[in-house]
Each structure stands twice: as C-alpha cells, then as structure tokens.
C-alpha cells in the first residue's frame, strides 16, 4: 500500500486512528494547537491527499482550498451536510460516507428514545435514585407506546428500519418525503404538517440539506401538539430549536427525545430544565460494533481509492 498522506481532523475513534496510522502516513490536526491549524495545513499541504473527518467536523471550503493535493474526503458518518460537496465536485475531490452499517443502531436509538420519552424511563429512574419512591409514593402514570401513530420524516434506510421496529409494536406508520413510495404498509403524507397532524410520535430521519433545514418548524410542532412527541436522530439543523424549546416549555408540544442539537455539544439550558425531554449526546451510531464497522468502511474506501478500484460508499 503506497503512502497516502491522510489528515485526520479530530480523534473520533481509537481503532480508526490506530489503523490509519498503521496503513497510511497519518497527520493529526489536533497535534497543533487550535490557533496554529492554518500553519499546520500550510506546512503539510503538499503531502495531504486524503482527509478523514466526522459528521460534526465536516470539511468546509477553507479547508478544501488549503489542500491543493486533496483527492478524497472520507467521512466517519453517514451525514455529510458539513462537507462542502459543490466545492468537492468543482475540484474533482471524491467524498465517501458510512451508510448502512449504522442504520440499525440509529433506528434502535430512535425507538428507544420514543419509548423513553412516552414511558419516562430516565425520569422514573431519576425519581427512584432521588429516594422519591420511598418518600412520595408511586411514580405517576405515563402513556402506552404500542399502537401510537408513528410519523417518519424521510423513509430512507434509517426511516425504513424505524418503520419495521414500529410495526413490532403495532404502531401505524406514516411518512413524508419528496417522493411517495406507494409502500404497502405505510401511509404517505405530501406535507410534513399533515404528517405531524396525524402522528403521535414524529421522527426526523432524513438527511440535512437546503430543503430539509428547519423542516420541523413552529407549524409542524403545533400540529404534533400537546400530547405529541418529537424524536430527532437526524441533525440539530432539521429543527427550529428555539421554537422547539418554547413549545416544550409552554406545553404546546408534549415531549421530545433528542440525540442531536443545533450547536453540539452545547444543549440549551432551557432544555436541561425540562422534565418532559430525554437528552442524548449524539450517540445514534454509538455501539462498539457499529463504530468499528464505520471505521472499516472509512479504511476500505481509502484503500479502494489508492488501488484505483471503485469506492465502496461514494457520495461524490
């Protein structure tokens, strides 16, 4: 294997870091202090032919332009909304992601967050650990998950996996996306507002792009309503976060299970103060098994590139 110069933007995952170091000429951006990143890039520009990035870091125009030798960007994520894809197309730079391998984990967490939000599992756990079962008696009644109407924004790989799990709970499933798939078991709605109006649990499972930015806005939130629950395992950018917070505080929205936020890792104080939300730290793909498979896909894509074979999972 020739010595491909690879720049890793942040530590991401130990196994990935070790394997990149073993197989390629690895440069680590975080070896330089934040205010010396530009110098680091300038000093190493000629040798860097590949960038390994994560969903949060992405690769913007400034980075891409600083690397004249860049041939490929391999993202350790399925979302590439933070990679400047048009700039990559202009420059002929390939871009790969990690679809498929994380589908099950993300779908599992989406359903886990929905059950947690409706049945208040983390809240009941908190109640018990605080000694309230002894002092205050039984935890209040919650609401059943099975049979609730599940509405999914985006019926791609992840959306379909969520739908399949929902069927196991006898949840009627409906969806919105640009194209009606005429699915035998799932009802299509041509707008997100109609989907929300006819759902008890609304799950965001589409990719983030110009059309889907803030697709969950005030109108959608109010259509979901005071007994509705929003589950977001997409991107923080899918939701108008200030509107979401305000609706939860006012009771115009019943509850939420969130894995992603507008400005990770910062979660608004106003959300932290609420008891009707379940807050996860962007861990949709967070199992050892899946992160290893994602790393292997990154490595496989880089090796295919070096060997001039078809890329495994190209986006560009």
């Amino acid at each position, binding site marked *: 294997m020739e010595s491909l110069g690879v720049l890793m933007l942040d530590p991401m995952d130990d196994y990935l870091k070790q394997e990149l170091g073993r197989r390629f000429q690895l440069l680590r951006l975080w070896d330089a202090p934040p205010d010396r990143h530009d110098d680091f890039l300038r000093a190493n520009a000629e040798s860097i032919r590949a960038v390994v990035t994560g969903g949060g870091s992405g690769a913007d125009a400034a980075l891409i332009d600083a690397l004249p030798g860049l041939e490929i960007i391999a993202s350790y994520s399925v979302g590439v909304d933070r990679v400047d894809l048009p700039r990559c197309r202009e420059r002929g730079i390939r871009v790969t992601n990690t679809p498929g391998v994380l589908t099950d984990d993300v779908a599992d967490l989406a359903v886990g967050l929905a059950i947690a939000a409706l*049945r208040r599992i983390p809240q009941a756990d*908190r109640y018990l650990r605080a000694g309230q079962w*002894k002092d205050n008696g*039984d935890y209040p009644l919650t*609401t059943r998950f099975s049979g609730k109407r599940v509405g999914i924004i985006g019926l791609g790989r992840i959306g379909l996996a969520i739908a399949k799990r929902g069927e*196991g709970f006898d949840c009627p499933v409906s969806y919105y996306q640009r194209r009606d798939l005429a699915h035998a078991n799932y009802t299509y709605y041509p707008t997100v507002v109609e989907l929300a109006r006819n759902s008890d649990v609304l799950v965001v499972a589409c990719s983030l792009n110009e059309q889907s930015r803030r697709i969950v806005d005030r109108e959608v939130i109010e259509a979901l309503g005071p007994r509705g629950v929003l589950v977001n395992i997409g991107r923080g950018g899918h939701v108008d976060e200030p509107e979401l917070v305000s609706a939860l505080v006012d009771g115009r929205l019943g509850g939420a299970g969130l894995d992603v936020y507008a400005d990770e890792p910062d979660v608004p104080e106003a959300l932290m103060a609420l008891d009707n939300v379940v807050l996860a*730290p962007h861990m949709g793909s967070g*199992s050892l098994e899946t992160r290893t498979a994602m790393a292997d896909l990154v490595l496989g894509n880089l090796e295919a590139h070096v060997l001039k074979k078809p890329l495994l999972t190209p986006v560009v």
Partner: protein
Amino acid sequence: MALGEPPSLIIICPGASFAAALRQRFHVLDFFSSGQSPEAFLAAAAAAVPGPPRAAVVWAGGPFRVDAAFLDAVPSLRCVISTAAGVDHIDLHECARRGVVVANSGNVYSTDVADHAVGMLVDVLRRVSAAERFVRHGLWPVQGGYPLGSKLGGKRVGIIGLGNIGSLIAKRLQAFGCVIYYNSRTSKDSVSYKYFPNVLDLASESDVLIVACTLNKETRHIVNKQVLEALGKDGVVINVGRGANVDEVDLVHALQEGKIAGAGLDVFQNEPKVPAQLLAMDNVVLTPHVAAQTSESRSDLCDHTIRNLEAFFAGKPLLTPVLP
C-alpha cells in the same frame, strides 16, 4: 333482589375513577370510601339491602386476603375478581371448595410491560439514562462523547416465561434483529424460538436474560448466582416479573464484581426499598415498578373488570377465569 336493580358488588381497590366507573353499572360497596375497618365493612356488606353482594373485586397489591375468614364473613359471594394477573391474595383452594369462581386481569397489562422491558433493554445496552445524566450534568462539552454502548442486533435474548408478556417481548425484539430463546414450564410448539428446558442452559447461550414469568415456588430466585455466572460478563438482566424472581443479593454482587455487564430492574424484593449499591451504578436502569402503569392500562383494566362482572351476573362464563 328486585328485577331491574343493578347487582351488588364489593370493591376493595384504591382509585376513585375505578369505583366511579363501576358505580355506573352496579351497586357498589366500596371499602376505601367506607371509612370502616375491614371486619365491619365485610359484616355490613353481608347484611346489605336490597341484597348482599355476590361478587367482589379485590386489589392484588394490598394487604387483603380473600381467604376462609373473608368468604365466611360474606357467604353470598360467588365470584372474586383480581385487579392483576396474579391471584396470590386469593385462597384458590377455599374458593374451589365453595364453588366460588375467580377471574384475573387477563392480558390488560401485557403490552405495557412488554414495551417497558424493551425500553429498558435499549436503555441498558445503549446507555440512554446514563448518557442523559451525563448531558444534564454538563459533561458533554467537558468530556466529549459518552462511552460506547452495545448493539442490539444479533444479541441472543433468553426470555424466562413465554406467556403473553414474554411473547410480546419476543415479537418486538425480533424487529430489532435479536435472536429469541426461551425457557418456560413446557415448550410451545406454536413458536419457532429455541427452547431451553432449564434457565442455567438458557443463560449460558444468551447475551440477555429477560424475566417475564409469574412468581411461584418454582420461579422464586430463578435467577441466582449460578445463572448470572452462566450469563457472563457481557450479559444483561432485565426484570419485569417480580423482585423475588431474582436473588437480589446475588445480583448486586454480580454487578459489583463485574460478573455481568448491566441490568434493567423494574421490581425489587422489598419495594420501595432498593439496595443502595445499585443507586451508585451507571450500568443499571432502575424504575419504581412502573412497567404496567399507563393510563391506557388503567382504563383497559376497568373495561375488562366490567366485562367479567357482566358475564358473571348474566350467568355466563368469566372472560379470564382462574377458577374453574
């Protein structure tokens, strides 16, 4: 009792809405609003006009036992209905001897308990509650991502008790890609899951054990030190049965010593007391016996009890008889 008058029944069950719903159809003698002692209440019931009660709905969670003394005190009783699946508080032998029919709550709670078991399993494997605490303590910006959990797909889930609850759990977890194994008193020909005649063998071949059986002599401490060791250091236990299905001392030790990876517990041996050692653990999820507690199951229980009573008073068989 005159024609057209609603039949009389005793209810011994806390919860005003339950009594109110029954009052719409029956003449209700309600212990919890009587202000009387149990003995005085039963004596008054036996002497009630226009007619003493022929049925009693008795709460399973409380101190009342429907035993010989109870049945002697109200000899008009011909039907006893439990508000739970369990009838530990009813002396079935005495009822059988007297020809008193007994019904339970059937499957009204099964869906919610199954949902809770699945929610707990996702929580333990994917660390939902623990990661939530991490976020709420402001640690995400400070420490970076939360430690990785474990994937559900491909996990071998051993269900102890494949009754209604166990079957609903199995159906749900199959959609997550889990492989289902089970132990029950007898194997069930109608399912394709692999059967294990004893819990020790089930534990040896499972990644997860879910306790979904009733509590009786055979199932007391059915999960003990040997079973936990057979389950192994990556293993997870979920208990939505009864606290006493698991040897709690053995479980705490196994968790402390890293003999198993984690647990999701909705029930405990001495509720509402929970072993202090568990409260400090991040790899356990603890809920205060809430698996069946949704507003839907309360309303389902009410409807179900009414249907059993209407069947009895119409001289028809009970919907969910325990006896005969």
